[in-house]
């Protein structure tokens, strides 16, 4: 049969976000494939150089749409490293609550998103409705459902609103009570299992070759390689949680790990709410009004564990009011670009969307 070129995306129901996978198929076996990124390119790294330290907080969350908080956190950590800022204790715990809520939200979304390549839309309906509740909680805490602009260098922008603990607890209880339901609906469902078992496996040696991090790596190498454990930031060293791992990384294992992380995140949030001290939530970067804040010279790299892996900000300051250079290491860069090029050939056409979904390829952070 003749080789044929197909586009998966940018306008495709199975594609997450505005990116395109170019696939050459023979029958339905992929012969050659590429990701065509850049459709969400906005020139962030240039934009950040052109905004002051404080203005950047309105730019940062927009790097990755679904999980803005890891961006904010990595940016804030980088600035704090440069300016040698001591973040107030309470701010650390609030940050962890926000980060874990964001992790819940994106795992739910990805789990729901599994509905489109597998054809089980019920999952999507459940997951998005629960995610909507998280977004409303975010709105109460941060002032916006999606672009929170809440974690800022020096702490968080505002203290938690009164009574939010109740909202969070009731949501967590509700989610926990329906956790088994979620599993039954999705990965315990024999139909889904038949679809995702042994689909697009990822051997450990390929992981190192590609540089994949996050769940994709942990489910392959069977080791708790999670930045929250390996180099704890915020106060992750003071909470107890497990890092779900698996010995064999197929689509099933990755989705399974995601779901297990949901349980861990629920636990972390509960511990944070219990352990959180009272106190200030923010310190300014330096004296003076915000537009005249300056940060000492230096080169730093700060990274956090996002739902898709290591999310890092490389930052250079020349001592001025703007960052001199900000580089963003998108967590899904390896699996999105090199993974699709090297690893999709040989699999079936209909598995391409599953790869994009289970590896969490997020185009805005690749394009920036």
């Amino acid at each position, binding site marked *: 049969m003749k080789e044929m070129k197909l586009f998966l995306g940018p*306008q495709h129901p199975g594609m997450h976000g505005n990116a395109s996978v170019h696939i050459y198929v023979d029958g339905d076996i992929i012969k050659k494939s*590429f990701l065509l990124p850049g459709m*969400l390119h906005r020139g962030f790294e240039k934009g950040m150089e052109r905004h002051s330290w404080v203005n950047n907080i309105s730019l940062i969350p927009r790097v990755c749409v679904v999980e803005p908080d890891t961006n904010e956190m990595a940016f804030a950590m980088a600035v704090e490293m440069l300016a040698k800022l001591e973040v107030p204790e309470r701010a650390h715990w609030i940050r962890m609550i926000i980060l874990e809520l964001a992790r819940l939200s994106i795992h739910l979304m990805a789990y729901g998103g599994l509905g489109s390549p597998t054809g089980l839309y019920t999952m*999507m*309906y459940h997951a998005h*409705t629960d*995610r909507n509740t998280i977004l409303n909680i975010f709105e109460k805490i941060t002032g916006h459902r999606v672009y929170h602009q809440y974690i800022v260098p020096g702490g968080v922008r505002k203290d938690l609103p009164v009574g939010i603990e109740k909202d969070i607890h009731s949501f967590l209880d509700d989610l926990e009570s329906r956790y088994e339901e979620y599993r039954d609906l999705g990965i315990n469902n024999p139909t889904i299992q038949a679809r995702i078992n042994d689909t697009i496996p990822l051997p450990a040696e390929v992981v190192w070759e590609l540089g994949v991090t996050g769940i994709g790596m942990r489910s392959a190498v069977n080791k708790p390689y999670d930045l929250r454990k390996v180099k704890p930031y915020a106060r992750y060293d003071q909470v107890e949680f497990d890092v779900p791992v698996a010995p064999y990384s197929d689509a099933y294992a990755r989705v399974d790990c995601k779901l297990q992380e949901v349980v861990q995140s629920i636990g972390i949030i509960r511990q944070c709410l219990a352990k959180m001290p009272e106190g200030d939530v923010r310190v300014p970067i330096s004296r003076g009004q915000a537009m005249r804040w300056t940060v000492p010279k230096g080169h730093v790299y700060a990274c956090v564990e996002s739902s898709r892996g290591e999310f890092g900000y490389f930052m250079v300051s020349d001592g001025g009011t703007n960052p001199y250079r900000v580089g963003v290491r998108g967590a899904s860069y390896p699996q999105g670009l090199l993974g699709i090029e090297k690893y999709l050939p040989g699999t079936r056409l209909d598995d391409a969307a599953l790869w994009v979904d289970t590896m969490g390829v997020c185009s*805005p952070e690749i394009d920036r």
Partner: protein
Amino acid sequence: MLSTKFSPMSKEEVDRKWWEIGDFFRRNSLWMLMYCTGCCAIELPPAMTSAYDMERLGMGPMATPRQADVLLVTGYLSLKTLRRLIYTYEQMSEPKYIVGFGSCTINGGIYHDSHAVINQLNKYIPVDVFVAGCMPNTEAVMNGFVDLMDLIKNKKANGWKDYHERYEWYLANQKAALGEVRVHDEFHE
């Protein structure tokens, strides 16, 4: 005595009547194209799923441009997307409508000084309704859709006609920004 005087309708009047009837059905079953051009698309899943359930308005996602009535431009458009969006828009069957989401489609939003993002969407393709917000909350999105229906009812959503009438103008703007509208995918491989 009843006078049954039959006055034949002119062709224009007949067309108009048919359009009105067509508009009634169209506006009550607006099918949107599932194309997430930018970040505001993240508020669409709640609108599509059970929380806001836009199927109550007769709206639903469609996989291909030829089936869809509404193109949602969800936020900023990089040049690379604009090329593909113009393709998509031109593939859609008429009448077709565009909803512009968020600040970026109106005047560039936060990316107004970016080298890769256009500022005013309605210079390149005609937009019928703009929804304010960055990003607009789901409620704002839903209200935007009803605004569009209202406009269709009042025969004000004529962007697609304008695209015919002033195609030269649109094309000139497209060329000014893009150089060439054609997509060359082979560049990248």
